[in-house]
């Protein structure tokens, strides 16, 4: 899984993921997400190129979101496809991490 980061206005960090968020994908991005979760407080994650999300990927997201939340930070996802959206709803994670329609909505959710 590929991960890239881009600084946006207002101290927002945009993280773009690409590839399946399965056991291998989670291994690829676990450390970067841990660093982000420990240092940043306004993070939006572009899911456009993530067509598969397994529970091990959910774990990475929740761990980072909790770390951010402990410091008052917020994470929001956007452009989430049908299959990953279903996983986030089934696990209830969409109640603690905002799942938004597009980038402006995600920025608004964390600002």
């Amino acid at each position, binding site marked *: 899984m590929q991960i890239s980061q881009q600084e946006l206005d207002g101290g927002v960090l945009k993280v773009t993921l690409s590839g*399946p968020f*399965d*056991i*291998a994908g989670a*291994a690829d991005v676990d450390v970067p997400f841990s660093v982000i979760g420990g240092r940043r407080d306004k993070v939006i994650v572009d899911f456009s190129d993530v067509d*598969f999300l*397994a*529970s*091990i990927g*959910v*774990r990475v997201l*929740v*761990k980072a*979101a*909790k770390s951010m*939340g*402990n410091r008052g930070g917020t994470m929001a996802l956007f452009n989430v496809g*049908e*299959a990953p959206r*279903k*996983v986030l709803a*089934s*696990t*209830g*994670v969409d*109640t*603690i*991490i905002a799942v938004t329609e597009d980038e402006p909505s995600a920025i608004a959710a964390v600002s």
Partner: protein
Amino acid sequence: MQDRLTLDADPAALARLNDWLAARFSEAGLAPAVAADMKLCLNEAVTNTICHGFDDPAGARIAVELQAGPRRAVALVTDNGRPFDPLAAPLAAPIESLRSAQIGGFGIKLMRDTASALHYERVGDTNRLRIECSAD
């Protein structure tokens, strides 16, 4: 194409599984939504076995069999790991807040929510998990 895939107890096995599934689903003309459900269930089942089923992965035997048509797929996952019934396993506590949320434990719930039917039995030294996903 073979309707049975054998896997090592190694995370790299998931890539092999998913490549095999993509070919099988295409061959069967399986509805995309059902294919997505089956892929998720099998990833959760096999990941769980790889991560928790074996003290020593050297002797692990994991196999996935699949029968699929346009609207329905049935998979049988067998392994010789420690006994584990995903239907009897306790679920993670429902999420109430970010602060109290557990970090993991979502896989079993995802399987139960996603599959149309699940059946588990232990036969000898083998776990047998049957997963059915259907558009009906």
